């Protein structure tokens, strides 16, 4: 592979129009494209979610045939995980990591361009798979065989999309690791890096650790489907349970790939709006690292019901519960940072506090799910759905919103409409809980996931949940409006719009110049 280093001159020349975006190697342009792409995917995945909730609004089959419903749940999961949440974090990293460590750009600017432009290819493969004969993959976002070994062309398109997304993530991760390790401004030692940079460094290592394993897994699935191998095919002596082990070896660290950068964002915002340094910085770093390490030894808690020896179940149960310790350290540190701070509640702070509240609920339901006898009851029910939406929507997504509002003045040079943004927060907060809190009850009462119909006793809670989901979905259009409004006009933002901000990006003018830190700042 040719690696071309981009060493820009001291001028702002770049092609205009569409070619600017196709050929750009600028970390800010690429970050912007990542963020817009992930937002488009978020709306696509959201549309699928609306379809799911519309079908589940009432018992019986009204809108979606069961097969299409299954495709909706499958693609909703894949698009949200690989298309929305992960690229959004990479977009934030592209914008912020170089500015926060005082680097002029990412280490491999051209590779950066390539890793972005792979994404629309993968995204369109996933979406167009709805229109091929047999329809999109319908075996759940975890694509367990034998279902995924049997599906039609849609499954092959999904496998190919995952290969592409994996390649993009790995390149992105390599870029971020190299940038952080090699390109920090003089004087910025590892233990002086902002928390967002730390969490991304650890996340990027997790990515290069597990994304290749996912690539291997889908390759095995592909050769099982078309080239006569029998990794997962019982008929040829393979084992479908093996797939689950290999998949979750990727899948569990993946969960932390989607939450560690969120921890980083919140760890930037809470100190800024509490006007106090982050409480227990070094313990935050160690907690992040230990979460990452522990995340690699807990995978089988996703598969307590496959028939595992009791010893195995106990090991994975205790290891899983152990993750609550470093996570607890983080929550206590955020709380201690706010303690006696001069707090103000602008939108980034609201989303961060909302994050802490709701993520802790999701964390607790995670500990509940870790208990083997309970997990055997709630496996594949709406309790699990509620759990992971509390950590992924009110966890990862709320942190992304917080980060976007926090840095939007730096990116655009203008303030967003604070009143509308607060409304976006409260609408999201309320509707999110309406949509997902009741799903705990549905799950405990035994409503299974991935089924388009349900027994009558679940009807009321499902209707409430659907109303919440529709409200939550619509509220996100308000977010789109706020961002566009901010780009097009609004009050001029100061270089440091938040008086508590201490990281390097606030020393740059707003909007951040196309090329920043060409002469590295010196950190004392």
């Amino acid at each position, binding site marked *: *592979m040719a*690696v071309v*280093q981009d*060493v820009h001159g001291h001028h702002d020349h770049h092609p205009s129009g569409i070619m600017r975006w196709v050929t750009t190697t600028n970390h800010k342009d690429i970050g912007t494209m990542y963020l817009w792409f992930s937002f488009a995917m978020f709306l696509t995945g959201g549309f699928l979610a609306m379809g799911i909730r519309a079908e589940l609004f009432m018992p019986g089959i009204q809108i979606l045939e069961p097969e299409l419903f299954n495709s909706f749940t499958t693609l909703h999961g894949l698009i949200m995980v690989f298309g929305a949440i992960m690229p959004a974090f990479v977009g934030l990293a592209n914008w912020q990591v170089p500015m926060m460590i005082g680097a002029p750009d990412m*280490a*491999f600017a051209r590779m950066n361009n390539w890793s972005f432009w792979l994404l629309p290819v993968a995204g369109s493969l996933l979406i167009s798979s709805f229109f091929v004969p047999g329809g999109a993959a319908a075996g759940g976002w975890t694509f367990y065989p034998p279902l995924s070994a049997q599906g039609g062309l849609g499954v092959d398109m999904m496998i190919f999309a995952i290969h592409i997304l994996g390649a993009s993530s*790995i390149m992105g*991760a*390599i870029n971020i*690791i*190299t940038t952080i*390790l*090699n*390109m920090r401004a003089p004087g910025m030692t590892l233990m002086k890096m902002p928390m967002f940079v730390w969490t991304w460094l650890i996340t990027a290592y997790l990515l*290069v*650790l*597990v*994304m*290749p*394993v*996912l*690539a*291997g*897994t889908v390759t*095995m699935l592909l050769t099982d489907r078309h080239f*006569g191998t029998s*990794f997962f095919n*019982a*008929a*040829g*002596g393979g*084992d479908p349970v*093996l797939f689950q*082990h*290999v998949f979750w*070896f990727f899948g569990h660290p993946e969960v932390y790939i989607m939450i560690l950068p969120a921890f980083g964002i919140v760890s930037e915002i809470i100190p800024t709006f509490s006007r106090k340094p982050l409480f227990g910085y070094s313990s935050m770093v160690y907690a992040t690292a230990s979460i990452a390490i522990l995340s690699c030894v807990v995978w089988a808690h996703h598969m307590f019901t496959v*028939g595992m*020896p009791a010893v195995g179940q106990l090991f994975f149960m205790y290891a899983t519960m152990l993750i609550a310790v470093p996570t607890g350290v983080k929550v206590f540190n955020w709380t201690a940072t706010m303690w006696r701070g001069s707090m103000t509640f602008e939108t980034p702070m609201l989303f961060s506090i909302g994050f802490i509240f709701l993520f802790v609920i999701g964390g607790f339901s995670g500990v509940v799910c870790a208990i083997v006898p309970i997990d055997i009851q709630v496996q594949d029910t709406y309790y699990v759905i509620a759990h992971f939406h509390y950590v992924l929507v009110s966890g990862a997504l709320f942190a992304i919103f917080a980060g976007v509002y926090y840095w939007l003045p730096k990116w655009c040079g203008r303030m967003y409409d604070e009143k509308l943004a607060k409304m976006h927060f409260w609408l999201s907060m309320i509707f999110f809980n309406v949509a997902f809190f009741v799903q705990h009850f549905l799950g405990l009462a035994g409503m299974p996931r991935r089924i388009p119909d349900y027994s009558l006793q679940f009807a009321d809670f499902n209707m409430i949940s659907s109303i919440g989901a529709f409200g939550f979905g619509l509220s996100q259009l308000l977010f789109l409006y706020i961002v566009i409004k901010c780009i097009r006009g609004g009050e001029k933002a100061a270089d440091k719009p938040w008086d508590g901000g201490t990281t390097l990006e606030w020393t740059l003018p707003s909007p951040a110049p196309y090329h920043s830190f060409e002469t590295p700042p010196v950190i004392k």
Partner: protein
Amino acid sequence: MTQSVTKTNTNVAMLKKLLVFTVVMFGFGYALVPMYERFCEVTGINNLLQPDVLDKNIKVDMTRMIAIELDANVRGMPWKFKPLQASVKIHPGESIEVMYEIRNDSDQEISGQAIPSYSPRLLEKYLKKFECFCFTKQVLKPGEVRQMPVKFVIDPQIPVDINTVTISYTFFALEPGM
């Protein structure tokens, strides 16, 4: 300028290391397959296709009877496969031989592999098979009929609430050359 060249070189060195690491992890994904096989072999999980070692001191529990229902299936191949008796009753600890019959209805030589399945699931722990047609692949000439035994003992340790169990075999076609 020299400084930026050194920086470029260290970046490329880092890129190479990380790419090697990525390739190693891709290989690791594949290495998990034999690793799990070995793990299951060592720990005795999932050893459905190997003979069990029979404990010589096993005692027959004359106070209990267990009904064993026999089931046979064929998946995607032109064979007829059936047990010669639908069910048997034995005392735990007593050894028994049951017979199955396969017939190749096609005009080609076909090889197949039988995969066992037990109900309830925990029967696997208590069923000690010391002879079974599922330990090897079966090759049948066109029209050939074969009767094959399974010899086993049910461990008397089997929980007292289990009175009926099912042993099921499914034949899968093996690709030529496997």
